């Protein structure tokens, strides 16, 4: 700040107003950074901080469509823990918890980390141009509008003769009777649909990490007669363990809170709560009214648990991945 002040004095002395260094210009230069930050601060306050407070308060109330405008939900007198008791005593709670764990772990292990690693390893070891093109094809899934993407998968799973898988793969092999596959095995498709989007994130990060490994290591291992598998196991994987850890934790949180694809694909069905996951439950309770009633309070209680997990994980990233060290001092002030 002091340096900046000096600079301004310097610049002022160049102009004709040499002695106007007043309290106001000092105040101005002190306030300037906040002026630059104010749009972000306003938006972040409106859509992060205030919602964060509201979601906690709502989760203690029974606000819904019937008592909206009547219930004074901001008054502590109306706050209870009923919603949380309701969650844990819900008949379907074990089912939803089980679904969530299955969905997150299967997608994470098979695709977001597993498939991502396989694709990254292959595309970095083949012809450069083909490797680049293959990575782009995988990115295409993420870039496709989610509604269109789900439509294509529904067509893949469709009943015979329309469904692509039934017509061209299962039909000739004589498996199944051509039913709508989303009704037969919804979980396989949920994992596939999310996995094909999720894999691209890890794939990009892993492949740039693999390309950054010095070539000497690879050559040395080859000279020592290591097989491809040994090179991957003892050189590549240990060298990219940091990106691996990052992708794993980051994607766990993403999967835990993402429900858009499931909402569009099965909407929690086909059976009762068969594919309902935690975040989808929160959404369903608050916005889609099964019984003609949207329970904002109860939905918030489901969401709050995810919010708490989200905050904890976000702080963990900040510490574990030492993002603090990325914060360098500004240069322009050091005049």
């Amino acid at each position, binding site marked *: 700040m002091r340096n900046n002040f000096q600079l301004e004095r310097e*610049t002022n002395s160049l102009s004709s107003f040499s002695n106007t260094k007043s309290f106001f210009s000092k105040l101005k230069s002190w306030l300037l950074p906040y002026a630059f*930050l104010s749009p972000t601060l306003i938006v972040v306050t409106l859509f992060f901080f205030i919602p964060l407070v509201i979601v906690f308060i709502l989760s203690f109330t029974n606000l819904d469509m019937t008592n909206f405008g009547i219930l004074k939900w901001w008054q502590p007198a109306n706050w209870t823990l009923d919603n949380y008791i309701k969650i844990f005593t819900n008949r379907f709670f074990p089912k939803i918890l089980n679904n969530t764990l299955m969905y997150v772990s299967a997608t994470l292990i098979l695709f977001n980390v597993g498939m991502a690693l396989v694709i990254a390893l292959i595309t970095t070891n083949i012809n450069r141009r083909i490797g680049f093109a293959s990575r782009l094809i995988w990115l295409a899934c993420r870039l496709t509008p989610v*509604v269109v993407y789900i439509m294509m998968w529904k067509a893949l799973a469709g009943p015979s003769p329309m469904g692509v898988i039934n017509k061209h793969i299962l039909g000739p092999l004589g498996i199944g009777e051509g039913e709508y596959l989303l009704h037969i095995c919804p979980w396989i498709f949920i994992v596939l649909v999310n996995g094909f989007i999720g894999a691209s*994130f890890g794939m990009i990060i892993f492949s740039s990490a693999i390309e950054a490994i010095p070539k000497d290591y690879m050559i040395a291992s080859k000279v020592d007669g290591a097989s491809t598998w040994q090179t991957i196991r003892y050189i590549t994987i240990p060298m990219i363990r940091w990106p691996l850890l990052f992708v794993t934790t980051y994607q766990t949180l993403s999967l835990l*809170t993402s429900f858009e694809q499931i909402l569009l694909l099965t909407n929690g069905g086909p059976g009762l709560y068969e594919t309902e996951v935690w975040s989808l439950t929160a959404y369903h309770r608050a916005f889609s009214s099964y019984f003609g009633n949207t329970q904002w309070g109860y939905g918030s209680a489901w969401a709050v648990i995810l919010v708490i997990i989200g905050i904890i994980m*976000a702080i963990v990233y900040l510490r574990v991945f030492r993002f603090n060290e990325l914060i360098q001092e*500004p240069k322009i002030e050091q005049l």
Partner: protein
Amino acid sequence: MLKKFRLKLKSIFAYLVLILFSLPIFLTFSWLIITTFSTRTEGLKSLGWTLNNWSFLWKSPFGPNFPSIWLVTLNTFLLAAIMTVIVVFVSSMSAYALSRMKFAGRRGFLSLTLILHAFPSVTLLIPIYFILRWITKIPIIGHGIPFIGGFGFNTIGGVALVMVAFQLPFGVWIMKGFFDNISWDMERSALIDGASRFQVWWKILMPNIKPGIAALSIFAFISAWNAYIIPFTFTVGRAGKTTVLSVYIQNFMSESVMTEWNMVAAVGLFQLIPVLIFFFFTQEALLNIYGGGAKGGA
């Protein structure tokens, strides 16, 4: 000789695995393209070629209750454009302050940006619903602006604002990186010549980070263009004045019978076209941005 053969075998194996794993992607996209131009399909086999599925371009296809595709496209474009412009401006302003100025709370602000970047904002949809309802009650800003409708509930502007909030932490972080990489000599000489910080930001730094602005714009535009859950949650009337393409298509899919499936696919391909254009012309940039920490999705 044998060694060379084994090496070749290995690379053939690698290609085979790659093709096998990528097969569903090819299947889905081929289905979309074949279906769009067919009267009916069985799997990937077309039962007759036609262009009739594209008639939605000049007449409302799903009955008079649905708005014209062009109104919906305009809505989607407005949403994406507003959101992109706000994100780029606001995040580059903040990024400039974070990159170039020293002030109390700078460290805290940077950590906050990172925490918000990692935080799953989609969990806050319920309270944001209430915030938008409150904004609606403000005169003019809430619901009285032409074209975008305002910034409240059930307006294009409101949806754009929520999407801006979700994108900002990522935007600020990316832009700060670009500002950090610019030498500060130019800036310094401009300051000595008597330019204000605001002038320096707008006239000297912004033209120098055009690649960054382009990258962030593409990212923001595509994510707004593709968005489903936020427009779906914060607008009402599935075929009303505020419908965007994603909601429009989803609405047909849940209502249409099998015979209309081909036309739904055509509308889907129509929505995909701008994305494909970006995809073919900015590949390098896309791979870089999405590696920079894409947020949301799985």
